[in-house]
C-alpha cells in the first residue's frame, strides 16, 4: 500500500491514520489553489530567511561604514547600503526576524485570548456574554493605530510595547468572530449530545466548541497578519515601535524616507519586503478560507 493510499483510505485503522488522512485531504484541496500555494511558499521562505539570517547575512547589520553610505546595489552590497553605510540586504534579513517575530508574538497572544473570550461569551450567554462583549466593544471602539499609539506613548517605545499595543487592539475582532461561530453551534444537537454525556461547560467549550471555531479564526488571523505587519511597520515608522538601530522594516523606511528621490532603493527595499509579506499572508489566508471554512463544504 502506497503512502497515498494509506492516507486516502476510506477505512482508517488507527486514530493517527484518520487524522493524517483528513489533513492530507485538506492539503490536496489547498494544493489546487495556485496563488495560495505561492503565498505559503513565500511565507515559508521568509520565515527560513529570517531564522537563518545570521548564516545568510553578508555583513553585520549594525556595523556602520560611513565611507560607504547610500551605495546602490553592487557585488559588495547586494541591495546597497543605507545612510550610515550599513548593508541593506543584511538589515532586511535581520529586520524580518524583528517584524515577523512581532507578528508571531501578537498572534500567540491574541488568537487564544479572542478564541476563549468569544467562545465563553457565546456559550455561556446571559450576563457573562453581556460583560465580555461590552468589554470587547470598548476595545473595538478605538481605531487600532490610535489606541496603539496612545498605549506606546504611555509606556516606553520599543518592540515589546509595540507587540502589547497591537495585541490589545487586535483581539476584539477574533472574540466577536468566535462568539458568532459559537452562537451558531451552541444549540446544535451534537453539543446537546455532549452536554448529556455529563461534560462540564469548560470541557464542552474547550474540546467541542473551540475546534469548530478554529478554522474560521485561522483564516481571519492569516488575513490579518498583513495588517499586523503594517501596524507594526507603521508604529516603527512613527518612531514608536522598534527603535534604531534595531533593523525593523517600518523603522528602516522611516529613517530612509529623506532619500526617496535621490537614493530611492534605500527606503524602497524594506517597503518591498513589507509588501511581499502582507501579500503572501493575504494569498495564504484566501486559500485557507477555501479549504477550511466549514460553510463552504
Amino acid at each position, binding site marked *: 500500500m502506497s503512502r497515498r493510499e494509506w492516507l486516502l483510505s*476510506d*477505512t*482508517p*485503522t*488507527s*486514530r493517527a*491514520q*484518520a487524522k493524517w488522512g*483528513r489533513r492530507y485531504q485538506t492539503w490536496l484541496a489547498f494544493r489546487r489553489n495556485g496563488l495560495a500555494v505561492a503565498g505559503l511558499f513565500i511565507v515559508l521562505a521568509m520565515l527560513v530567511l529570517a531564522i537563518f539570517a545570521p548564516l545568510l547575512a553578508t555583513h553585520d547589520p549594525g556595523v556602520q561604514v560611513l565611507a560607504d553610505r547610500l551605495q546602490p546595489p553592487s557585488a559588495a552590497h547586494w541591495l546597497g547600503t543605507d545612510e550610515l553605510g550599513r548593508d541593506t540586504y543584511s538589515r532586511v534579513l535581520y529586520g524580518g526576524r524583528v517584524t515577523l517575530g512581532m507578528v508571531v508574538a501578537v498572534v500567540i497572544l491574541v488568537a487564544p485570548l479572542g478564541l476563549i473570550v468569544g467562545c465563553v461569551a457565546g456559550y455561556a450567554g446571559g450576563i457573562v456574554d453581556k460583560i465580555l462583549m461590552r468589554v470587547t466593544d470598548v476595545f473595538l471602539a478605538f481605531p487600532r493605530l490610535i489606541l496603539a499609539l496612545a498605549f506606546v506613548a504611555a509606556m516606553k517605545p520599543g518592540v515589546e510595547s509595540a507587540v502589547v499595543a497591537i495585541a490589545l487592539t487586535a483581539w476584539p475582532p477574533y472574540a466577536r468572530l468566535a462568539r458568532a461561530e459559537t452562537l451558531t453551534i451552541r444549540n*446544535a*444537537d*451534537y453539543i*446537546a*449530545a*455532549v*452536554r*448529556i*454525556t*455529563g*461534560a462540564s461547560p469548560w*470541557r464542552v467549550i474547550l*474540546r*467541542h466548541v473551540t*475546534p*469548530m471555531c478554529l478554522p474560521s479564526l485561522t483564516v481571519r488571523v492569516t488575513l490579518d497578519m498583513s495588517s499586523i505587519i503594517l501596524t507594526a511597520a507603521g508604529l516603527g515608522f512613527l518612531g514608536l515601535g522598534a527603535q534604531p538601530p534595531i533593523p525593523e522594516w517600518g523603522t528602516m523606511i522611516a529613517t530612509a524616507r529623506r532619500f526617496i528621490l535621490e537614493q530611492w532603493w534605500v527606503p524602497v527595499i524594506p517597503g518591498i519586503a513589507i509588501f511581499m509579506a502582507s501579500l503572501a499572508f493575504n494569498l495564504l489566508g484566501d486559500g485557507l478560507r477555501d479549504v477550511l471554512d*466549514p460553510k463552504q463544504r
Partner: protein
Amino acid sequence: MIEAGRLNVHFGDNQVVHNVSFSVAPGETFGLVGESGSGKSTVLRCLAGLVDSWDGTLRIDGQQLGHKRDRAFFRKVQMVFQDPYGSLHPRQTVDRILAEPLAIHGVPDAETRITRALEEVALPRTARFRYPHQLSGGQRQRVAIARALIADPSVLLLDEPTSALDVSVQAEVLNLLADLRQARQLTCILVSHNLAVVGHLCERLAVMQGGRIVEILSEQQLRAGQATHSHTRDLIALSHELEG
C-alpha cells in the same frame, strides 16, 4: 422509574407544555405521540436537562430532579436525537465520539468498551476511525445509539430516532433498539409523530396536543382503536388510511 408531575414549560411568555403528568415503570417503553408543536420533544428535553425553564416535579429512580443535573444523572439517563446528521460532532471520529463519555465518567478499559459498543450496534470495525460524513444515515444513528449506551445507562430517551431515516433503515434501527432494550433492561421514552412506530416499540403511550396530554392508552387499546379523545381517533384513522 420515571415520573413527571404537573410539568409546565415556558419559553419566554409562551407556555409550551401544560400540566403534563405521567409515569413509566422500570423496563417499560413509554411513547409520546403528537404533531409538531405538541410539546412532546420539549417534555423529553426537560427530562434530559436540556431545557431550563420548567416547573413541576420530575423524578427518575425515585430521585427528585433539579434544574442542574450532576454527572451521576447523566450516567443513568441518556438520549438519542432525531437527526443523525446533526447529533455527531462533524470533526470527531467515531472513536473520539465514543471515548468522550468514558473519559467524562472515568470508566476504565475504554478500548474493549468501544469495540464492544460497535459490535453491539452491528457497526463494522472499520467504522471506528471514520468521520460522521463518511457514514450513512443509518450508521450514524447506530453511532449515536452506541454513544448513548456506552456508559451503561438505565434510562434511554429517544427523540424521533428513525424519522430521518429510510424505511428499510428504520426497520433495522427499530429492531436494534428492541434488542438492546431487552438485553439491557432499559426503561425508554420514545417521542415520535408516527403512531405505527410508537405502537411497534411501546407498551403504553401518551397522545399530546397543544402542550397537553389528551389521552394515555396502552398499545392494545391503540391497536383495537379504543381511543376516547377525538384527536387520538383522528391520528389513528389517518395512520390506518395510509397503511391502505
